[in-house]
């Protein structure tokens, strides 16, 4: 199969990769760029484990072709913390609130949450539920996740981020 050379920005770095036309963005991230924080859950866009931000908007990377990301900006779970050592407020809140059990849905869940708080810094509980409506968690029953997002929103407001 022919490959296409594409350029894209992943977590702030310009990357040039040769991709097959049927390669998904998820495969590109996991198999080619070794960014394995993004998970393969269902492969059909229903579980949200593979959520990443494409030009700032959440997408299911299992349903996005790598070539669609040409000349665009991708943010994955590895790229949301502004420094390499501290956690993003959403990550911090997930840890503190016990919003994590097996952890497999967590990166996707956090990406959806990060997008929510960027576009709506002070969400209602109902808006939070809606924002993570495409992310399945089989362990927690969601309560602690919702609490974590509320906590992160408060923390961000407090710190002026």
């Amino acid at each position, binding site marked *: 199969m022919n490959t296409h050379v594409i350029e894209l920005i992943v977590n702030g770095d310009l990357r040039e990769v040769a991709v097959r036309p049927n390669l998904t963005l998820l495969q590109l991230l996991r198999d080619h760029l070794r960014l394995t924080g993004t998970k393969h*859950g269902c492969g059909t866009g229903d579980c949200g484990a593979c959520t990443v931000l494409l030009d700032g908007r959440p997408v299911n990377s299992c349903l996005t072709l790598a070539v669609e990301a040409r000349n665009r900006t991708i943010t994955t779970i590895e790229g949301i913390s502004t420094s390499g050592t501290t956690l993003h407020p959403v990550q911090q809140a997930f*840890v503190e609130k016990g919003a994590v*059990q097996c952890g*497999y849905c*967590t990166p996707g869940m956090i990406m959806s949450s990060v997008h929510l708080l960027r576009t709506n810094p002070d969400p209602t509980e109902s808006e939070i*539920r809606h924002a993570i*409506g495409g992310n399945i968690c089989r362990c927690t029953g*969601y309560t*602690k996740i919702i609490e974590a997002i509320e906590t992160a929103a408060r923390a961000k407001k407090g710190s002026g981020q």
Partner: protein
Amino acid sequence: MSSDDVMKGDSSSMNTVVHQSTTHDSAARHATGEAVYVDDIREPVGLLHVCFGASSCAHGRIRQMDLSRVKAFPGVVAVITAQDLPGLNDISPMHTMDEEILCSGEIHFHGQALFAVAADCRDTARRAVQLAEIDVEELPAILDVEEAIRQKSWVAEPHEMKRGNPARAIEQSAYRLQGELQLGGQDHFYLEGQVSMALPQEGGDMLVYSSSQHPSELQHLVAQALGRADHAVTVEVRRMGGAFGGKETQAAQWAVIAALLADRTGRPAKIRLDRDTDMISTGKRHPFRIRYEVGFDEQGRIEGIDLNLAALCGMSADLSAPITDRAMFHSDNAYYLPHVRIRSYRCRTNTVSNTAFRGFGGPQGMMGIERVIDGIAAQLGKDPLAVRRANLYGGEGRNITPYHMKVEDNVLPELMADLAESSAYTHRRKEIAAFNLQSTVIKRGISLTPVKFGISFTTSFLNQAGALVHVYKDGSIHLNHGGTEMGQGLFIKVAQVVADAFGVGLEQIKITATHTGQVPNTSATAASSGSDMNGMAALNAVNKIKKRLVRFTTKKYGVEEEDVQFTQGQVWMGEQSMTFPELIMEAYLERVSLSATGYYRTPKIWYDRETARGRPFLYFAYGAAVTEVEIDTLTGENRIRRVDILHDVGRSLNPAIDRGQIEGGFVQGAGWLTTEELWWDQSGALRTHAPSTYKIPLSGDVPEEFNVAIWEPGVNREPTIHRSKAVGEPPLMLAISVHSAINQAIASLAPGQALPALDAPATPERILMCIQSSGKP
């Protein structure tokens, strides 16, 4: 700490690492994406990717399997069938020899593995599989319990528990009731699907990384399939992305197939099932058909009961015998049954073999008796809670289970009273009745249901665990045990136990992956027993090392044994102290062994299956939930308005982790009983094999008001680790209150009538059908 306290697993009073809400040890790594699951391990050079070809009929005989085009497909490196196995073609976990790795001729279910392909990339392997030409003679299939019972098609012989004379008691009762309840199965839908990677080692050895709850069994089955001794195979499991029982036996087949191809090619091989394949080809919770006949008095007290449990086990025994046994053990739930017969039929069908799933048959058993109680209440026009209370296990004369075990630790009368009060049950029940009188379309229901869940594997020999603890010269500690981490927080709980016993901080403890080379012959991390057993085994190892350290200290410093205390990172010898690392270095230089294995076997338990008598459980875990729901009687749509839970975890090792188990278990149980529907077509093919059609609870399905509390007075009467109680499975069954409340809402349409016969899952469709058959509106 006296040696008696050590044996009991009680706390040293000075340290406070246990009973604290420490976060999950991997939480930060989960949140950054740094945590490594099997599919995230850096792929070795030359890795092969494995896919398998599956049957497309429920029952048949392979006439011919032509794989020439598969083999010829560019990029394919190896293809194997049943004929290519060097060892035994079986992965049955209980040696029933009825579950092949690859089909040798007779197909037993739709989705059964027939052959496997290894190729340079996953895409190639998947494409190649499609090129197989398989000629099958289809045979008549058994697809439901009715047909299985007609043909006496069993995976294990029917079993009966009986006490007293139920037939006579029912006949002599003032009131009688009979009915039937159908319960659907449930797919585990662990977010991380089945995955294994096998790496060939020198001398024919094999190293396997797998997402498995049962590394020791996987080790044995890989060795058996390769025709080698167990010592030739090593299995490592760092963590799973969810399991819920679905990786107790179901991980083995894929690990074995990967190992077979790795062995054949001399190259590492990885298999990762895609979601549809995972749902089609791996086992699930058992669907049940429950029939009951009960006799009771005017208070609703049960006098005699006859329960008939038919379980759809699928094509092989797998763990169906102990699962259906556990359903029998929980057919009483929290209630004393003076005269009782419980019969269990383990139906062999041409469907995927059903398996362990959180609760292990217990939820189905409990659903039966809770339906009976609701039915009695409806017939007598009483509040179901009053009937529940009237039937609870009590003192002498009312404390013997159907399997002749005495219930000694029942806390439900008190716990349910606390919950009824904190949830304002009685007041809200009246409010709901008033609401239902004025609301024509929307109806509400409320229900309080208890849980009493037996803790221990009912197969007694499985109740053993091992651990391995090393203290290095710098005082840092390596912790390993036989339990596996699937998100439930086992690793942090055991680490808390170890840190507490050494009197050091958690940062001193290195939690390490479960590894068959470190702790051998382990049981599956299952039956909610993980922290009970591995916590005790680890404590045993720590105490061995501490004993040596104390002996060394008393000798060197001339202090008494009881003056040596391990606390706050220090070792105290009367008034003097040194840091833990200082003592360790001194001990090392004086040639004291700083490594120990630990072991634990659960005491007191025994069970004689022939006579259905014994004490299969060390203790019971208790809890109760009140759920209020609302249904739309025109569409069948439903939602949970409010849930109140009070759950007994004994003295919690980690309250935050336990709360997570309670909340998550409840929601998972609610999914089983409402939205999650497995739908097989008439040919025996599963049609709900992806999250697009199989509906897992989402964030919007969580109760609007969700009050979860750990029952404060809780303490385990038995000498478990720090007097805690198991918490993995019991909370799932709190969700029975959801189903019961929906049925109450339906019942409000026809007051004074018999209880509606709502089956599970209570999908909008089933709710509507139930409303229509109830004759209203």
